[in-house]
């Protein structure tokens, strides 16, 4: 089962993104806590792209595709903005965030804790970030 969303690069669209993911995940057996984690992780990546790669330009957009399989869920986030390599990005230490009174930097840390696999690739046209969550096999 595949779900696809074209998301315009405005922060006010994040609520729409959450509803879309929630709707797609409602078909799974995942607990409310797990569903919320996945919604959060995908939102963090998208918010990052909207703010940092697209400067909140409401005319640009990113694509989110959700592939639901019995063994795993794959979230594919595609855009054509400035490439942001999520794998090379180094998340800050929590203590440093507190000391430096930083407001940012926690999002991708959440993504790393929540997802089982994070992939990034870029070619001349698109950047693709692929997040995979394995589902428990019975």
């Amino acid at each position, binding site marked *: 089962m595949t779900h696809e969303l074209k998301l315009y690069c405005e922060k006010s669209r994040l609520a729409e993104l959450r509803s879309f993911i929630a709707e797609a995940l409602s078909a799974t057996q995942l607990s409310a806590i797990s569903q919320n984690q996945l919604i959060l992780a995908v939102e963090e990546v998208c918010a990052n792209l909207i703010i940092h790669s697209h400067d909140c330009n409401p005319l640009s957009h990113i694509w989110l595709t959700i592939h639901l399989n019995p063994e795993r869920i794959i979230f594919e986030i595609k855009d054509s903005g400035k490439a942001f390599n999520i794998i090379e990005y180094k998340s800050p230490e929590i203590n440093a*965030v507190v000391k430096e009174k*930083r407001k940012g930097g926690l999002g991708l840390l959440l993504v790393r804790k929540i997802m089982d696999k994070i992939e990034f690739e870029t070619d001349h046209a698109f950047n693709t970030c692929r997040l995979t969550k394995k589902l428990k096999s019975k």
Partner: protein
Amino acid sequence: MLSINMTAAREHLVIALNGEVDASNSVELDEVIQEALSGSVQKILVDGRNLEYISSAGLGVFMSYLEDFRENNVAFVIFGLNEKVMNVFHILGLDQLISIKNTQEEAEESLYDA
């Protein structure tokens, strides 16, 4: 959607969060905490009973004030988080850095008995 209410009670302030905190509105939360800190109050409670969702943008706001709370001797306690929101604090271990209580009663107790 997020609405924030600030009320004074005894010697403390209660900041009640209603709705969802994300990158589109975390600045509102930031402003309210800044306002609370600008007064002379030494005790701040966050009522999270109606907080439905929080992303890193909201967590970051709380985190960015922890040093200010410490430096100014401000007691800061969050209470009433639902299990989804509590889980998000827990993933990053923020429940070890911020005082989080189940009920308003427990939260007030911790403010006044300390």
